[in-house]
């Protein structure tokens, strides 16, 4: 069954496009960049340099270069004056800390070298998880371009004390005049900061604290307050779930994240049970891609479907409408009833009434999966207050505005109103880490330290109290927000002392401050006292009323817009981070852009296309999208699995203020985000002229028709069928003919096998069932291995340097006419099959990196033996030996080798982090920065395995079980990537290699990789 599947990477492949055909035969799409160094004919002819002159120059420069090379540069070595006791140059220190930037919240571990943070990893003891953005936040610390460096008043530098004195004076006079002042912050989730704000407000009673989330979760907060008396996000224990139904909630992607761990814990085929996950959505989200069944529904129908589900479960009759998916809903209702308390319904519709319906369904199910006691505090924004604030400002009612780490000028949908209102505010103070358009519009711009330079505490859920500590001396003349507020309140204690006293007295319960700080968190006992339910705010919710309101508010239209955030840029706070810009979207595989996702059917109707160019890049048309009078022009990307009549557009792009030119990409979608609602009705689309060039790695790195690179099976097959069964096996090895007999490809060899029982033998196991495609590992790999950023143009022509990529494959049972014939489909049926399959394909993610083949094809073709095999199983790459023939890349069946076309460090042409003094501080000193003309690839983090071995040797002990790690495996939240030594029987990976799900990609090539994949198991919910 599984072997019938065809995997494809782009919609163009379905059209029998000749270019895709050509590309699939052309293993290596990159052309040599001759025009870069030779120039074209015209330029050559116009040149005034004659051949003789040219030779003279060449002779002179060669002679000069060789003369200069004879004298080595003098290197200074400057030791500390007083070396800190716990710092040893060359040895990494790890600190436990927390990240809370208003959008991303995580318990983290920070790796520092010589006092510089160089990597962020999840604090697994605190149950912490990291996303691509959390991983990349370490680079934002060194953003020389955007960080505020000195306190300024009207762009003139003033001292901190002067600034504070002036603001204090202004605040006092505003207090005396009884003019309202607003303190506008993002979600802080910090108990001590909230206490400081309370004290600030009691010192200045005219101050009001308003919380503003750029990407709002107001709907669920309101619903929770109404139903459970608590303005917080519900928590979900998805590991215990039997049936998960989601209506547009991207809980694996960007729905107030962190659920991927528990979700995957509930999906372990070894246990014989997996949760059954059905996703109703319009955009193809990461969650939908991972679901067992994905139902394509446009947003308005999602609302009706939700109501219909409520009806079906409770039997109550509420107003709703008929949808095309009612049959599915009926089936699901019985499923959910069967699951009972193990069932859960989530929705991502940011609307109080929809959320109320979902909560009511969970209540009706008596769901244990949703947790309304141990709630999450990571979104607290109040949209009504923010909208009121803008109104008041416009009316001249606001005397002062203090903002902290937000950018309303960029993120507000009605930014013109805000800017106009701001002119009527007399005291304008921005406290911010980064410079942005809003900071620029204020009178005072006060720099606050990055979270890696700050003290702090966090309370993401009710039980985990997190602490944050500085991991570097402040880079600029910054002062913490809390310190400024304390000073303005007239409290002379500094924030560190305040925090310590607060934590010791109110939280730690007699526990040690040092221990809590060392661990980075403190687990509180959850008691009834911590569950504060405010019965006053609790409303008696009548779903019938809610439903009729919902039906009235939902204005189904020809096109409906679903705004979303990407796993890369999120709300756009880190838009100046080159790692995140170059991070390909997990679904579309496009980097450096946002775009309108549209269904294939709509694209056909409106005449949009994504032609593939001969260099493997794809182009797109532009569309003008208008919503409620707001218009934006965006490029169009045809997205398989997009609901017909719906379009998607990512927020967080199109930021321009202060950004480097290369980073000013995409289109700002916030103007369309009216009332902070992610669903917008009454959308019209119109094709406009122009061609957009995408930097998309989708068609590049083609698999050349080797479809068996992926293996997917259903849970039923997994439980009942023998994996290697000759007919129905779901993990059949490849067979080859040997001596006129069919034998397993793995059993024969043209090379002699080395003895690998001795010492360590490293293997990496990748569980395709557990991989959600989130991409945290990709950024972790960047940070660990100094992977350069190459920019949009270079990515477009397939010269990205990612050592680890996550391939996304669409699959369908029927793909071509031949398949249809095989299945015996008639003409009409065939077309229908082709279309419907592509309308909603299955998605599989496959992390792909160097497979470290024991019989590596790359090693045998290198003319200078620059790549060779280590006894520990790693395929090693000696950069200093490589002469850049690229034979190895051509001979690699996995297409994982990357060539340095240019010098990416210290090069004005690639003005990213490796071209400035601050950005270079993030480089890992243990890994070489590669120069032009050499090949590079995944090293299986040999610097980390070597360091682990050395540590064991120094301590005179054997390496502990599961002590070996790579950057990707330690960043992986769900445990999909497991690394270890298979010569240690206790290591987790040893059992995984022998697992019945284990397979090698393209095993018939007999490359014998040291990377093992585990067959993806989907729960198709068959009996």
């Amino acid at each position, binding site marked *: 069954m599984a072997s019938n599947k065809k995997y494809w990477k782009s919609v163009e492949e379905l059209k029998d496009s000749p270019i895709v055909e050509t590309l699939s035969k052309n293993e290596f799409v990159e052309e040599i960049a001759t025009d870069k160094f030779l120039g074209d004919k015209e330029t050559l002819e116009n040149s005034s340099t004659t051949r003789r002159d040219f030779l003279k120059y060449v002779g002179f420069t060669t002679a000069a270069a060789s003369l200069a090379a004879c004298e080595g540069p003098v290197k200074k070595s*400057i030791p500390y004056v*007083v070396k800190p006791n716990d710092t040893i140059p060359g040895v990494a220190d790890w600190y436990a800390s927390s990240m809370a930037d208003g959008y991303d919240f995580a318990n983290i571990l920070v790796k520092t070298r010589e006092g510089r943070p160089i990597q962020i990893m999840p604090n697994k003891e605190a149950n912490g998880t990291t996303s691509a953005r959390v991983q990349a936040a370490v680079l934002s610390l060194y953003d020389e371009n955007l960080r505020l460096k000195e306190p300024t008043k009207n762009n003139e530098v003033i001292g901190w004390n002067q600034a504070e004195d002036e603001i204090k004076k202004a605040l006092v006079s505003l207090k005396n005049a009884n003019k309202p002042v607003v303190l506008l912050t993002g979600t802080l989730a910090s108990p001590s900061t909230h206490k400081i704000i309370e004290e600030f407000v009691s010192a200045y009673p005219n101050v009001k604290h308003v919380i503003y989330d750029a990407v709002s979760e107001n709907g669920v907060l309101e619903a929770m307050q109404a139903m459970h008396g608590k303005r917080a996000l519900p928590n979900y224990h998805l590991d215990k779930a039997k049936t998960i139904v989601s209506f547009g909630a991207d809980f694996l992607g960007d729905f107030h994240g962190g659920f991927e761990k528990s979700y995957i814990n509930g999906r372990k085929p070894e246990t014989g049970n997996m949760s059954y996950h059905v996703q109703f959505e319009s955009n193809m989200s990461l969650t939908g891609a991972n679901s067992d069944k994905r139902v394509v529904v446009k947003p308005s129908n999602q609302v009706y479907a939700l109501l219909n589900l409520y009806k079906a479960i409770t039997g109550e009759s509420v107003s709703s409408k008929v949808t095309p998916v009612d049959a599915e809903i009926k089936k699901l209702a019985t499923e959910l009833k069967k699951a009972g308390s193990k069932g859960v319904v989530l929705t991502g519709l940011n609307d109080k009434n929809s959320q109320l319906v979902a909560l009511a369904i969970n209540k009706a199910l008596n769901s244990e999966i949703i947790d309304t006691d141990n709630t999450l505090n990571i979104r607290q924004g109040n949209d009504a207050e923010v909208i009121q604030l803008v109104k008041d400002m416009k009316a001249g009612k606001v005397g002062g505005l203090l903002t902290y780490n937000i950018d309303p000028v960029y993120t507000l949908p009605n930014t013109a109103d805000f800017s106009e209102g701001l002119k009527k505010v007399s005291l304008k103070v921005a406290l911010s880490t980064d410079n942005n358009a809003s900071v620029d519009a204020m009178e005072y711009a006060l720099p606050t330290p990055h979270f890696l330079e700050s003290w702090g505490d966090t309370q993401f859920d009710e039980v985990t109290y997190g602490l944050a500590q500085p991991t570097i001396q402040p880079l600029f003349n910054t002062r913490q927000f809390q310190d400024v507020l304390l000073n303005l309140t007239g409290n002379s204690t500094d924030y560190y002392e305040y925090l310590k006293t607060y934590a010791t007295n109110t939280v730690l319960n007699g526990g040690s401050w040092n221990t809590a700080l060392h661990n980075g968190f403190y687990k509180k006992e959850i008691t009834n006292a911590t569950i504060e339910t405010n019965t006053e705010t609790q409303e008696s919710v009548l779903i019938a009323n809610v439903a009729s309101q919902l039906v009235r508010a939902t204005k189904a239209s020809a096109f409906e817009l679903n705004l979303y955030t990407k796993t890369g840029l999120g709300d756009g706070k880190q838009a100046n981070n080159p790692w995140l810009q170059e991070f390909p979207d997990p679904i579309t595989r496009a980097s450096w852009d946002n775009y309108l996702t549209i269904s294939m059917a709509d694209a056909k109707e409106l005449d949009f296309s994504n032609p593939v160019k001969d260099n493997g890049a794809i182009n797109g048309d532009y569309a003008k999208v208008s919503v409620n009078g707001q218009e934006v022009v965006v490029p169009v990307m045809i997205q398989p699995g997009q609901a017909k009549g719906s379009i998607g557009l990512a927020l967080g792009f199109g930021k321009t203020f202060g950004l480097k030119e290369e980073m000013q990409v995409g289109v700002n979608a916030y103007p369309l985000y009216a009332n902070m609602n992610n669903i917008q009705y009454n959308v019209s689309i119109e094709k406009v002229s122009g061609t957009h060039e995408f930097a998309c790695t989708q068609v590049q790195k083609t698999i050349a028709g080797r479809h068996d690179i992926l293996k997917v099976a259903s849970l039923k097959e997994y439980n009942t069928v023998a994996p290697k069964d000759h007919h129905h096996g779901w993990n059949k090895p490849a067979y080859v003919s040997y001596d006129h007999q069919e034998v397993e490809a793995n059993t024969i060899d043209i090379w002699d096998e080395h003895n690998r*029982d001795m010492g360590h033998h490293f293997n990496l196991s990748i569980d395709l069932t557990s991989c959600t495609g989130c991409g945290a590992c990709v950024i972790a790999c960047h940070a660990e291995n100094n992977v350069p950023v190459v920019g949009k143009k270079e990515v477009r022509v397939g010269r990205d340097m990612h050592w680890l990529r996550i391939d996304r494959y669409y699959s369908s049972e029927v793909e071509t006419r031949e398949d249809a014939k095989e299945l015996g489909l008639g003409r009409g049926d065939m077309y229908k099959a082709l279309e419907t399959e592509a309308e909603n394909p299955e998605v599989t993610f496959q992390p792909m990196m160097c497979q470290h083949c024991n019989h590596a094809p790359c090693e045998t073709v290198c003319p200078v033996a620059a790549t060779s095999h*280590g006894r520990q199983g790693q395929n090693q790459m000696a950069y*200093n030996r490589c002469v850049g023939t690229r034979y190895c890349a051509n001979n690699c069946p996995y297409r994982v080798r990357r060539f340095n076309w240019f010098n990416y460090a210290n090069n004005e042409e690639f003005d990213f982090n490796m071209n400035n003094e601050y950005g270079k501080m993030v480089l890992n000193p243990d890994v070489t920065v590669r120069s032009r003309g050499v090949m590079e690839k995944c090293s299986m983090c040999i610097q980390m395995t070597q360091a682990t071995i050395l540590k064991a040797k120094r301590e005179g002990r054997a390496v502990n079980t599961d002590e070996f790690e790579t950057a990707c495996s330690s960043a992986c939240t769900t445990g999909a990537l497991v690394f270890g030594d298979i010569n240690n029987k206790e290591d987790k990976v040893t059992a995984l290699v022998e697992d019945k799900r284990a397979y090698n990609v393209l095993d018939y090539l007999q490359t014998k990789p040291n990377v093992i994949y585990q067959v993806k198991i989907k729960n198709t919910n068959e009996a």
Partner: protein
Amino acid sequence: MKSVALHSKLAKVLLKSFTFILFFAFSLSTTSQEVDEARQKEGRKIFKSLCASCHKLDKKLIGPALGGIEQRRENDWLKAWIKNNAELRASGDRDAIAIFEEYNGSVMSAFPQLSDQQIDDILYYTTVGELEKKVVGPIPPSNPDGGDNTPKWIIWFLAGAIVVAFLMIASLLKQVNELKGNTSPETTSNLKRDLHELWEGIKRNTFLKVSSTIFLLLIGAYVVFGIIFKVGVDEGYTPLQPIAFSHKIHAGENKIECQYCHSSAKHSKHSGIPSVNVCMNCHKNIAEVAEGTKVEWDGMTYGKAELDKEIAKIYKAAGWNPETLEYTGETQPIKWIRIHNLPDFAYFNHSQHVTVAGLKCQKCHGPVEEMDEMRQYSPLTMGWCINCHRETNVDLKGNDYYDKIHKELAKKYNVDKVTIAQLGGLECGKCHY
């Protein structure tokens, strides 16, 4: 009133200097008189071992200057103080308490183990001071232009004179020859003709032509490769450091353990250049070098005068005021010049070699304890690394990490000893990543 006060002050100063001169005259006269050398030596020995970390004869250090202390204090009081000053203070001795307070309550250790005789010896030493050295003459003045005493131009001049003389003799001999009737043109034409014939012969003989071409090419290649392979190899690199720090004095004469200063070597990939506070551990008390210390530095000989200035550079870097004996807080890191530079693509870890393998630093860095001026001793080429890894046996005993691997290796190679190469120490990826 004012003038009177001034007058009296002046008188005081005069009186003080008079007594000072008198005292010096006295003490000088005592030293010039016969000194009990044995007693002085004994006292000096004890003083250096027990007292010198806090006291000097002529300068205040942590404690007061002790030169001529016997003139200022009673012998019995001194004995009581030295043996147990805390007890003396506890007994309510006013002088003792006053001194204790003058030095901000820093406690002097008690020395109950010292006998009266030993204390007397120390006191004798404080009174007579250092013995004048009789044998050692004055240090020859260092020459700022060059290391040798003879200027270079003289050598050149002499060499030139010899050449000129040689040429003169040659021309004279030639003239004599001509006068004798032997015409010189013939001889030259003979020689020319011979050479010409040889050349013609070579040109005609293909074998000779080919073999000499090959020979010349080989020579050329050898020379070129010899030059190219030396590029970037900095064996013997001796950059001029900002401070004339002598490893010979520290590691050699004073036998300071290498890792006392290079303390990172056992933990880290870097051996670590000591931070200035490590220097100050000792140099807080060592403001000047001993008489007669000499350091060969940059082709010159540094004597006490120069070396004391070098120590002052540490004080400047650490922000230490040697007069007030306090830190000023104005620090200035020392910009040493790195001698051992590995290229960025080569990974080397000191702790692997120092802690795990237990190598002596000298194995790679040479006889550092004999070097005044530090230089790169080894070529630090890949061939040099590899050779050592090929030849060196790994000590597998006593480290649990190697236990399992040792058994397996012993089985595989049928030997008890394994080299690093056999452990995979020659793999590219072990040093290049």
